[in-house]
């Protein structure tokens, strides 16, 4: 019965809009099957978590009220009074963190499997910008509950922006909506979080997904040397999609488990006149940068240590984005290629600095 209605509906659309390209894509899209196939699912999980963010974010918007006098109170109302509000808010917070984690895993998996190489340079670049936007989502969203920790973390975070020469100070004032973190900053961050970022993000995500559909999945290097009959593939629809769905379901279950058993504390309301609480830490995904800046000496030659650190991360990020255009000589006698070594060092740096940040 339902199947019948479904077929009729598809026929109705097909008759008017010609679904042949979609049908072709679904029928012919293949995903290479090999021992590193697991990494193909990371992008999908990231996308799923983004969808969760989108849905829970919209639901939170129904009750959230930005403003110095209402933000904290409305979040407290959401987690205490609104039916399933606690679940939605905690899923949103947990999903945000997992989203960043999976985005990083996805990025490094693409890097190590060299999936960014020609012709997928733009997929890499859009992906990198999406990651930066995700971090911006995290940073702006962190302030919205207007609690003590968020307030001071934002103060420290925007202070770091201020050290950049020439544009730093104006940028800091632009971000804060004034000299200090105030209600103006909150309104601004709210606007950025729910309107500006989603608008840019949607365009880039659309492009990112379009590029993938247009070019198909990346095949590993060893596939090129394999005879056609030895190359194994699975169909994207329904085989890969079913596996994707299975993983999404598991991740969803983990999400609600985390939301229930490890809820995010709301803490005390932000108070500009209170002294900063002990142990102000940025979110974990900024920790490696924060810790590096802390470990730098106050002065390196004639420059401020912090300034050099900020510039270094800025340039390093830019170079990382342009990785597809970098020509590093292939060393046939090297077991691990130079770029892979650089990638491992970067990943190790991030992990170690994050660990130091939490342990010291």
């Amino acid at each position, binding site marked *: 019965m339902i199947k019948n209605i479904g077929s009729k509906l598809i026929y109705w659309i097909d008759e008017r809009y010609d679904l042949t390209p979609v049908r072709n894509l679904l029928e012919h899209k293949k995903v290479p099957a090999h021992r590193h196939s697991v990494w193909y699912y990371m992008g999908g999980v990231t996308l799923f978590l983004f969808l969760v963010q989108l849905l829970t974010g919209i639901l939170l918007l129904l009750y959230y009220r930005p403003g110095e006098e209402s933000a904290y109170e409305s979040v*407290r109302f959401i*987690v*205490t*009074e609104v039916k399933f509000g606690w679940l939605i808010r905690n899923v949103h917070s947990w999903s945000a963190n997992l989203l960043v984690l999976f985005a990083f895993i996805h990025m490094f998996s693409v890097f190590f499997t060299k999936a960014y190489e020609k012709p997928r340079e733009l997929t890499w670049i859009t992906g990198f910008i999406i990651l930066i936007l995700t971090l911006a989502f995290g940073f702006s969203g962190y302030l919205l509950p207007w609690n003590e920790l968020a307030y001071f973390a934002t103060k420290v975070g925007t202070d770091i922006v201020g050290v950049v020469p020439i544009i730093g100070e104006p940028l800091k004032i632009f971000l804060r909506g004034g000299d200090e973190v105030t209600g103006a900053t909150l309104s601004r961050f709210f606007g950025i979080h729910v309107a500006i970022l989603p608008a840019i993000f949607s365009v880039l995500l659309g492009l990112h997904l379009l590029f993938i559909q247009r070019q198909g999945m990346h095949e590993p290097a060893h596939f090129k040397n394999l005879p056609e009959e030895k190359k194994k593939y699975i169909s994207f629809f*329904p*085989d890969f999609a*079913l*596996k994707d*769905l*299975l993983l999404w*379901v*598991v991740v*969803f*279950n983990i999400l*609600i*488990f985390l939301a*229930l058993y490890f*809820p995010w504390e709301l803490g005390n309301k932000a108070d500009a006149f209170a002294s900063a609480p002990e142990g102000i830490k940025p979110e974990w995904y900024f920790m490696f940068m924060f810790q590096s800046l802390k470990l730098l000496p106050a002065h390196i030659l004639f420059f401020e240590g912090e300034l050099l650190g900020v510039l270094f991360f800025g340039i390093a990020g830019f170079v990382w984005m342009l990785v597809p255009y970098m020509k590093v000589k292939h060393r046939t006698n090297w077991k691990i290629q130079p770029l892979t070594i650089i990638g491992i060092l970067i990943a190790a740096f991030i992990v170690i600095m994050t660990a130091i940040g939490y342990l010291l």
Partner: protein
Amino acid sequence: MERGSSRILIWVLTVSFLTGAALYGQTKNKNIQNPQQDRCYTCHKEIDNMPVDFSDNDVHRHANLACSSCHGGDPNSDDQEIAMSPGNGFIGIPKHKDIPKFCGKCHSDIEYMRAFQPSIATDQMTQYYTSAHGKKLIAGDENVAECASCHTAHSIMPVKDPRSTVYKLNIPGTCNKCHGNSDLMKKYNLSNNMLEEYSKSVHGIALLKNKDLGAPACNDCHGNHGAMPPGITSVSHVCGTCHASNMEYFNTTRMARAFEEQDFHGCEQCHGNHAIEKTTDEMIGTGEESLCVNCHSSGDAGYIVANKIKNSITDLKTRFEAATNKYKEVKQKGMNDVEIGFLLQDAKQDLIQSRTMIHTFDSLKVEERTRNGIQILSKASVLADKEIDEYYTRRTGFAAATAAILIFAVALYFKIKDREKKKSTR
């Protein structure tokens, strides 16, 4: 010419002398510019003959007052004969009986005192002469306390200075210097264990152990310069200074009038004085520790009221404890405890107020207050139960969701395996 010059000289000298004399008159016995140039101080220091209790931190020294400001004499002369001559106003060590007036010379002079502190009181001496100490001093008693007995003679510091003998935390010790002396106290038929009793009392523990400066020291009940033991009529006023509601309730009762008729000491009659203990609910009712049974016996109206009051308060207290336990459970489970916390605060207020209302000796009034508290507590209890239920509902819901997800995931898994199997056989 010569004659004219000497006339001018005489004229200048006369004017200088008169101006000097006028200025001297103004500064006589008062402050000097530099205490280090005070000859009394420098000579006595040199010959190591300073007062035993002398301190450079003395408040008068900080106000640039010289030894001569109190003791008289000429602080500018190196010659002992001149410096300490009665002709120069030298008084020396004042007699015990003269000390209040000796200090009062300045401290009762508002014109002079307000130069140092505009809002300073200048009635200490007048108050002192109305005190038990002052009256006895006038009567010729050489043992009673005068100004220096409490303030010291040469280490006087402001009341707010923790080094001062009259700083709040130091007052019980200062009074006890005399009032702890058994030989001295015997003469006045007074006990000498006041400090010992006070230290164990609720007030003493708050002040001396917990350093709570809001707690009363000796002078808060007895007065300081006008120190007196509170009389029968004034005792409830003394306690009522802090325990205002208790006093208000008590004074309007029949019990207050009965106390007066019987010469009972208001609050002190039940609570004691220096050894006053932290009150407990056991002090009311008709149990073993009850104070009511000291006067009331089984069957009389007071005995029945005492029981009723006790029951009302015990009921509220028991319910409050039960609700608090539930509140703790809600908190521990990480559920919403904000509203319950507010309700418990209100209920606690009712418990405190109903305990205060014991002093109305009216069981209906106490019951009205406890009933209010009980109503609030039942609201808190309902809310707490709701939150605890919600806690378990969430877990049950999660278990059900997980089961459904698991079934779906397993079905998906078999579907995938099935497709793989079909493909390999194809």
